[in-house]
């Protein structure tokens, strides 16, 4: 880390040039636009984003079904989500995401279950609408406490011309206006998980908001302090360790989108006074809609690490009165000793350690503050499915000369880590074992490597413990056998 900023920029450029050599020329030209080095003062990271992956390069991305069923709808706990199509998509995403919830699974909540129409050849040939109709009846009979059904389309649905909207409307009518939501999140749509988020948001707008009687929950009484947490999927309990801070601030959280979320919370969200948005990428769409249609302002916030939390608490409080502003200061003060103790314990061991990140649509920038609170340095980051507005926002988090890689390929990421030799890599399950075998400590930053929560003050202590544990494990000293040169 004694290299100057200019030296690092040059090293990065050389690294990128090296990596591009491996591609056929036409492809190298296209990939070149997704790789770069951040120049301080620029409005974005200088890379293209949100476009098709090149075929055959080992992109890390998923598809629209993952963005809709996996990310947005799946965590809504009191609805049944049908993976509509062949068995695979639902199977591989069955309980794989740690969007925690409270409930009696199979009875009043259904998150960790796999509901599928298990499409067979005859369904492809003759269509699946009749089957879907029957499926809804079977769900009603066997899972009577479900509060709604969503239909998450897999690739074949859009290709064979099924009319899931007609089935949804028909069954909803038959079932006295039950919430039945068709979602056109077929995997071939868009270029990544991202369009799936958008389609999922639109489906909430069209099939929940626009069809819900505003007086559906007359018992609900508004207060001036009602807020909704938007875009927190409660990974390992993240939304709970965030919610507690908002409540301590004197706010009333009326809804969580969508970790540990319920359909009633979603239906009541238009009554919120403020939407606080954590994952901008996946839920900016519905936030903008609620602002437009219901006049609800929204504010992006960041609960990773004490510096960001402090800033966010004040920013959120600024939307409310002096009582809330004073309470926010109390909350900040209350947790200062815990934060100082965590930093005193872990910063000396982590100071100066370098990190390379590659995550989805928010965390490639959002977690940087938490690392910096521990004295760590993020030297490279990139998004699977970020858009240009994410890369713009990233400029406020990263330092000059940070290596940037959009929709990184397996080949590129391996090469970058091999040359940059960071002390820690933060990415996903498909990357973890590659880098550990190279002797590089690794923490999964989608699933929190089965740990968490990482949001909020309570979460920061766990984050610090885990980053330290990963880097300081004795195993990294054992990778070279003593008899090897």
């Amino acid at each position: 880390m004694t290299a100057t900023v200019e030296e690092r920029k040059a090293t990065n450029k050389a690294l990128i040039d090296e990596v591009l050599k491996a591609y056929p020329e036409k492809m190298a030209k296209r990939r070149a636009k997704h790789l770069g080095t951040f120049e301080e003062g620029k409005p974005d990271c200088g890379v293209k984003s949100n476009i098709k992956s090149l075929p055959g390069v080992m992109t890390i991305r998923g598809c629209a079904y993952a963005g809709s069923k996996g990310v947005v709808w799946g965590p809504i706990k009191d609805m049944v989500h049908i993976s509509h199509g062949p068995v695979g998509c639902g199977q591989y995403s069955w309980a794989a995401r740690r969007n925690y919830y409270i409930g009696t699974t199979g009875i009043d909540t259904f998150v960790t279950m796999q509901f599928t129409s298990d499409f067979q050849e005859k369904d492809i040939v003759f269509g699946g609408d009749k089957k879907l109709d029957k499926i809804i009846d079977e769900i009603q009979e066997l899972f009577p406490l479900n509060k709604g059904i969503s239909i998450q389309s897999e690739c074949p649905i859009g290709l064979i011309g099924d009319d899931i909207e007609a089935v949804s409307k028909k069954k909803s009518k038959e079932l006295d206006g039950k919430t039945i939501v068709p979602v056109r999140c077929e995997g071939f749509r868009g270029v990544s998980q991202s369009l799936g988020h958008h389609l999922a948001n639109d489906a909430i707008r069209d099939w929940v908001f626009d069809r819900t009687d505003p007086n559906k929950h007359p018992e609900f009484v508004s207060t001036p302090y009602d807020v909704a947490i938007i875009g927190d999927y409660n990974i390992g309990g993240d939304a709970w360790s965030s919610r507690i801070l908002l409540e301590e601030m004197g706010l009333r959280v009326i809804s969580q989108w969508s970790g540990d979320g319920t359909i009633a919370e979603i239906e009541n969200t238009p009554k919120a006074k403020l939407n606080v948005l954590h994952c901008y990428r996946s839920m900016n769409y519905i936030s903008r809609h609620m602002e437009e249609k219901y006049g609800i302002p929204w504010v992006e916030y960041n609960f990773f690490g004490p510096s960001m939390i402090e800033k966010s608490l004040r920013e959120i409080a600024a939307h409310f009165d002096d009582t809330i502003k004073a309470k926010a200061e109390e909350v900040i003060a209350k947790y200062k000793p815990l934060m100082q103790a965590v930093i005193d314990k872990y910063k000396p061991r982590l100071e100066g350690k370098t990190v390379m990140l590659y995550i989805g649509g928010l965390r490639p920038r959002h977690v940087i503050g938490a690392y910096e609170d521990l004295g760590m340095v993020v030297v490279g980051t990139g998004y699977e499915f970020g858009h240009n507005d994410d890369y713009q926002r990233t400029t406020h988090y990263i330092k000059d000369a940070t290596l940037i890689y959009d929709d990184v390929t397996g080949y590129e990421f391996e090469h970058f880590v091999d040359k940059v030799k960071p002390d820690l890599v933060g990415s996903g399950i498909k990357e973890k074992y590659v880098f550990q075998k190279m002797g590089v400590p690794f923490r999964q930053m989608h699933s929190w490597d089965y740990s968490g929560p990482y949001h909020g003050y309570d979460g920061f202590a766990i984050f610090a413990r885990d980053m330290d544990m990963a880097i300081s494990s004795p195993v990294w000293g054992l990778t070279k056998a003593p008899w090897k040169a």
Partner: protein
Amino acid sequence: MSQSADKIIDHEMLFREPEYKDLLSRKKAHEFNHSDDKIKSVVEWTKTEDYKQKNFARDSLAVNPAKACQPLGAVYVANGFAKTLSFVHGSQGCVSYYRSHFSRHFKEPTSCVSSSMTEDAAVFGGLNNMVDGLANAYSLYKPDMIAVSTTCMAEVIGDDVDAFIKTSKQKGSIPEEFDVPFAHTPAFVGSHITGYDNALLGVLKHFWDGKAKTTEPLVRVPNDSINFIGGFDGFVVGNMKEIRRIFDLFGVKVNIICDPSGSWNTPTDGEFRMYAGGTTKEEVVAALHAKATIVFQEYCCEKTTKFIAEHGQEVVTLNAPIGVAGTDKFLMEISRLTGKPIPAQLEKERGELVDAMADSQAHLHGKRFALYGDPDQLLGYAAYLMELGAEPAHVLATNGSEPWAAKVQALFDSSPYGKGCKVYPKRDLWHLRSLLFTEPVDFIIGNTYGKFLERDTKTPLVRMVFPIFDRHHYHRYPTWGYEGGLRVLVMLLDEFFEALDGNTMDIGKTDYSYDIIR
């Protein structure tokens, strides 16, 4: 606050703290859930015979199936060949899912690429994706072979993979002579074992039958070697070691066709190896000339078996034999085919296994088991259970056929411990949940998804089926061979002892039975 820097608590304990208990109870007011009484009454109803009848009357909805789709099996096959890159033609989401599914089980990287077809490819076809995809994959990952399979999308729009590969070669994506075996693997037909079969057939067809009509088919010149095909196996790392050891002890020249045990077991020594081990092209070619092929899992290789037989070999099909008689049969087939005697070492191991079974039989005798998984595997486990005097009361395979079910019934009929046992083809784990309430058993043999059944019915789960995500390194140990039988025995016993100890440690109430010697 409950969090402290000295004693950091995470999701396991944090949310049991009073401030979070309060938070969760405040949240409830916004959920507008059903009443506790209503919830309780439905909970109880799901345990009844009435619910079971309605549950079994389902003909459209699948809930918690115990199967995956074809391309998963195709990726497994590709990883079983030396320096071979798996290439799935179609939507890219699928590939990420296959990779994460295998990686969560093996705790290893799983390489695979997609041709990343998107909406325009749905309209115009995926030719360009194949052309560019093969070129990119070849340049970046430098494989010796690329094995192509397909996702739903490519299948529904009818992409002609054979033609696309040929066009790609014409356009210079890859050299003309570069091996690209392929298979059509539609996810709406069969399951992951069907994909294994189709993909393996694709590889054999490619090498034996003239590489998609681009060269002369090979001519078989029979010799004394034999082939071994393991099938889709979540314990392949431990099992292939055992299989190779067995053939070594016999002194037999064996071509093991499709061996991903190297690819899913590379060391952490500072170097990432994208390719490791696997069946070589020479071995695939040599396999044509073998005297016979042993197919260890019949239902993973139905088409492949027919193909090999048509090429003049004797094919011995087994059903993942586990335990004493099953392994005896396997070894006696090797002996019969090769003329070599059963090695003394293996006979010793047989005796050691029988010895272990005799030592422990009292604890498993009469115990009722529910088991689910792949068809062949279930035949193997059911037979072994009956050797232990245990009862495979419920045997369930979501991807099991009627002929398979008949085979299971015949197995039941062959032993007094099969009396009253039932087989359930094409049922799922929500069906099994009903059975565990209406006809309870002592233990479940299944995969990680069975933990939901354990939670709901308090029936202990033994993880001996793919995938296993929430226990580590089981796949490194065999379940096949006498050694594997011993490992399976210990797993069954450990679960029994854990359950018994757990049930007898209530101080002053039940711990009179908390024996130190069992």
